[in-house]
């Protein structure tokens, strides 16, 4: 049986764009779970919608539920039948509940339980789908998750915005879904202005097409394509190119039912304001796409996606141009005012801005800036960079938080700081030569702004950014604000990831290792935590436990980053198990581990286990290997010692070069000899003679030591062994 299609439309007032996207993503799963529970297998299921409607489209919904036959376990036989063999009240009740006669109860063994139990075979005839649907669909409405919902009129029920109509059609039949006083019918609504009023739907199959005729493009995918096509049309008309912005495209798609692109222009005089300010003003305040001229420079143009067709597009364009001109005039005013401000004076005012209230005496952003300066100064002892430039950048890095443009457009923090610093220092004789570099470091200190985003190009920007983030991490861990579960309100995971990403990039094995080579990269994590903790001295007590927890937090973040890079989780855990203070070294070791086959890992895990056992029993190991105590010439322990001593120099040399692949190759070489040591015909380590036993344990310890320093073999072999 093929089944009929179902359309269920929830009509309401304008749903916020970002909430619409999430609701449409969740709706199919919610419907699927309810249909599964109702034993209704469907061919296809999707959600479409616009700001004014959420619609579930189900294809191939069968005419009825299949019958259900299931075995239900009841009370133990002892409790179900009396001494005379007659069913007890418990058994009769159980039988009735499941619609069977007491005589039909079976006795059976039940998995996981002892003794015999009473079992009934329950038979539930499938109901017609038409009877199941009203309740099932009504139940979907309150199940849709909204970040915020509201009440309206006198209703005590909540929804994202007031509800106005419901449509539920199964084939050509109306399903009478009831919710909040509404009863579903076959009448949808057209576009608010272009086709106001009811749209009659003869059948579920006609839904998309009938709405299309009423200027409603219900499918978000299709609307997005239409928006993109409008952009392309206006690009061709204007000769300029819209700056690609997928998130904005998604948003404007969900701000309309019928997209109509309108291109406009602004006074080229505004182009004197930094491009980021113009683009962000257009995007955030107006949802406009900014455009570039053929040569790549910002064009004094924009595209807006209107939500309706008007009689004269020139009116809409002129209106939008007027609004934008006012916005840009404001932005230019703020920018000009900001450039008059003394950045050091702004820095002093940061003492009044709360960075983190829980830090008590160290809570202000001004305090934070002083700590960043302190960390940068300390890092200069380990890492090579222009400490004068980085120090000045550290001092000024947060001043832009008190500027007008950043107040209006917070995401431009850093970027604006860079502009203002370059401008201010250019006229300062002491700094003019370095103005660009200090500005660059300030603007780059927020980079990377997210996973996979560009890293700071300058080492000074990297250092200030690391100092800023380690300060946040230490401060939060020191005051009990570390992330719990999925909640991370202070962005600490992102902060740790950014520190690691910068270190992994500039250190050995990173994409820009040439830049960091010989310059102290990567920074030791322990040193970083230590110098950051020192900055709080006398104000906030940062305990060793806090630092230890932060260290483990870095382990978790580093593990995730390396696994995301494509390394095997087992290799990463084994490498990090031998330390990760130098995160690049840990990465090299994790990468190299890939060459070690499972059998070799097993053998070395065995060594580690034997040594652990001995340690656990309180057996002291001298670490001194005396070949004189070997049992006989040419036996397994002799051969192992010879093989190891022969490889020793090569191992040391490889280790000095961080050539971990070579070290593991030697491990693989040694594997058969170690295996022979343990195998039949080998030797017994835990010999009753103390000196022999100690000699063998020492032999194993010596062999394991160079490898244990680079990987934890108790982890590397996996759980099963």
């Amino acid at each position, binding site marked *: 049986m093929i089944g009929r299609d179902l359309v269920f439309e929830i009509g309401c007032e304008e749903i916020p764009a970002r909430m619409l996207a999430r609701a449409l993503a969740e709706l199919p799963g919610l419907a699927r779970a309810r249909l599964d529970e109702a034993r209704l297998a469907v061919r296809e299921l999707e959600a479409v919608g616009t700001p004014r409607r959420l619609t579930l489209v189900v294809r191939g919904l069968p005419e009825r539920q299949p019958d259900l036959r299931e075995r239900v376990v009841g009370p133990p036989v002892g409790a179900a039948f009396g001494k005379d063999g007659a069913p007890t009240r418990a058994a009769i009740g159980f039988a009735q509940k499941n619609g069977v006669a007491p005589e039909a109860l079976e006795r059976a063994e039940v998995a996981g339980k002892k003794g015999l139990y009473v079992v009934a075979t329950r038979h539930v005839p499938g109901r017609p789908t038409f009877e199941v649907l009203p309740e099932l669909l009504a139940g979907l409405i309150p199940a849709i998750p909204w970040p915020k919902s509201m009440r309206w009129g006198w209703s005590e029920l909540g929804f994202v915005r007031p509800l106005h109509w419901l449509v539920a059609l199964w084939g050509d039949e109306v399903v009478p879904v009831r919710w909040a006083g509404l009863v579903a019918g076959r009448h949808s609504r057209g576009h608010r202005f272009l086709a106001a009023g009811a749209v009659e739907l003869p059948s579920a199959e006609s839904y998309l097409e009938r709405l299309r005729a009423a200027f409603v493009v219900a499918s978000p995918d299709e609307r997005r394509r239409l928006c993109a096509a409008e952009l392309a049309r206006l690009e061709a008309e204007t000769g300029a190119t819209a700056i690609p912005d997928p998130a904005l495209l998604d948003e404007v798609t969900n701000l309309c039912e019928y997209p109509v692109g309108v291109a406009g222009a602004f006074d080229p005089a505004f182009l004197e304001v930094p491009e980021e300010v113009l683009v962000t003003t257009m995007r955030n305040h107006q949802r406009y796409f900014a455009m570039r001229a053929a040569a790549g420079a910002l064009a004094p143009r924009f595209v807006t996606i209107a939500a309706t067709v008007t009689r004269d597009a020139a009116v*809409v364009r002129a209106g939008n141009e007027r609004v934008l001109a006012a916005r840009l005039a404001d932005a230019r005013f703020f920018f000009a005012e900001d450039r008059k401000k003394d950045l050091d004076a702004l820095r002093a005012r940061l003492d009044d801005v709360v960075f983190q209230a829980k830090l008590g005496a160290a809570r202000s952003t001004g305090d934070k800036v002083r700590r960043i300066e302190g960390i940068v100064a300390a890092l200069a002892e380990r890492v090579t960079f222009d400490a004068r430039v980085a120090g000045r950048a550290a001092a000024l890095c947060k001043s832009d938080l008190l500027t007008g443009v950043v107040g209006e457009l917070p995401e431009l923090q850093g970027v604006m700081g860079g502009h203002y610093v370059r401008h201010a220092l250019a006229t300062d004789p002491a700094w003019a030569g370095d103005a660009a570099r200090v500005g660059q470091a300030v603007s780059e200190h927020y980079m990377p702004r997210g996973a996979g985003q560009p890293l700071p190009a300058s080492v000074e920007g990297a250092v200030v950014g690391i100092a800023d983030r380690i300060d946040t991490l230490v401060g939060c861990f020191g005051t009990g604000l570390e992330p719990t579960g999925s909640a991370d309100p202070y962005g600490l995971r992102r902060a740790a990831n950014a520190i690691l990403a910068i270190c992994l990039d500039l250190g050995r094995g990173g994409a820009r290792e040439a830049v960091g080579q010989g310059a102290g990269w990567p920074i030791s994590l322990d040193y970083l935590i230590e110098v950051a903790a020192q900055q709080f001295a006398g104000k906030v007590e940062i305990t060793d436990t806090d630092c230890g927890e932060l260290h483990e937090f870095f382990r978790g973040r580093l593990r995730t980053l390396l696994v995301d890079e494509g390394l095997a989780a087992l290799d990463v855990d084994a490498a990090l198990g031998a330390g990760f203070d130098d995160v690049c070294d840990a990465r090299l070791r994790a990468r190299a581990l890939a060459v070690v086959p499972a059998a070799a890992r097993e053998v070395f895990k065995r060594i580690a286990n034997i040594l652990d056992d001995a340690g656990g029993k309180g057996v002291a190991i001298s670490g001194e290997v005396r070949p004189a105590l070997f049992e006989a010439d040419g036996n397994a322990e002799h051969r192992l010692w010879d093989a190891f001593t022969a490889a020793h120099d090569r191992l040391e040399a490889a280790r000095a070069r961080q050539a971990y692949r070579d070290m593991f190759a030697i491990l693989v070489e040694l594997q058969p000899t170690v295996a022979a040591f343990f195998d039949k015909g080998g030797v017994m380590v835990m010999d009753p003679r103390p000196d022999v036993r100690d000699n063998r344990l020492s032999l194993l310890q010596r062999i394991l030591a160079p490898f244990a320093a680079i990987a934890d073999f108790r982890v590397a072999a996996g759980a099963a062994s």
Partner: protein
Amino acid sequence: MYLQDLIFALSRYWADNGCVVEQPVDVAVGAGTFPPATFLRVLGPEPWNAAFPQFCRRPGDGRYGENPNRLGAYYQFQVGLKPAPLDIQDLYLESLRRIGLDPRDHDIRCVEDDWESPTLGAWGLGWEVWADGMEVTQFTYFQQAGGIDLMPVTGELTYGVERIAMYLQDVDSIFDIKWDKHVTYGQLRHPWEVEYSRFHFEESDAAFYFELFDRYERECARLLERRLTLPAYEHCMKSSHAFNVLDARGAISVTERQRFIGRVRKMARECAEAYVRSRAALGFPLLPAADGARARAAFDAAADDGVNAQALAAARAVSPLRAAPDGGADGAVAGEGGAP
């Protein structure tokens, strides 16, 4: 359309649709939400439909009359419909047509903008309404005021009068708006903007305004004890304005700011609670007498549960949904079925 004609047209339109055209409150306020005609009337079960222009002062937004788009004080045309009728969006769109913003000519749309007033302990959900990309109205379904859950829900429409006038008159500066045939907005308002910017940013006496704040706050508390709710709320409004003056002067540090907002919120909450009690004591006089008595009885019966629960109980007692056939089960909204 002259600015005053815009106000006339909106007043006439909303009067025709059942609104009382109450006149603005004679106390300095920052928004049309503050006047008792909004903040107090949205509380409790009584219906209330009102429309009025309100002079709103935003000391910190002043620009010495030099910015063509920013003012330290401006006019809001404020409409409150309680309960918000189900066709409130259609009513609103018709009001736009009346003032010359026809959706056949302009791109009108609703863009998410949730509203929250930390000083009033109030929030609501709704939109900013855009006409060709310009925000012309704030449209809010009030959910809470003075910390009290609102039932029934009021729909609040706040028109930005100057912006709409600039658009309709095609002028690039607020000060070029024609108030009527003879007088411009600038002629009327520019000196105020210049002098008050100087006053707010340079001359206001912070010590004096700190003292005012404290005294208004104390007076508010004293009047509440004397069960003089309306005068008490006036002093709440006054202390809120004193706070805005101090804030514009830069006299309040970032950390102190939250504390001052909390103090105003506490006054607003206490006034709101006192107001609901005083309306209950009067038998909720804007309800039909029988409903008023029932609402009051329900309010009194819930006395142990706090004002919020009492207000909800009073509303439930007179809700039109209580008699609906399946209203008890699913709290129906006034029926508007899909099928005609």
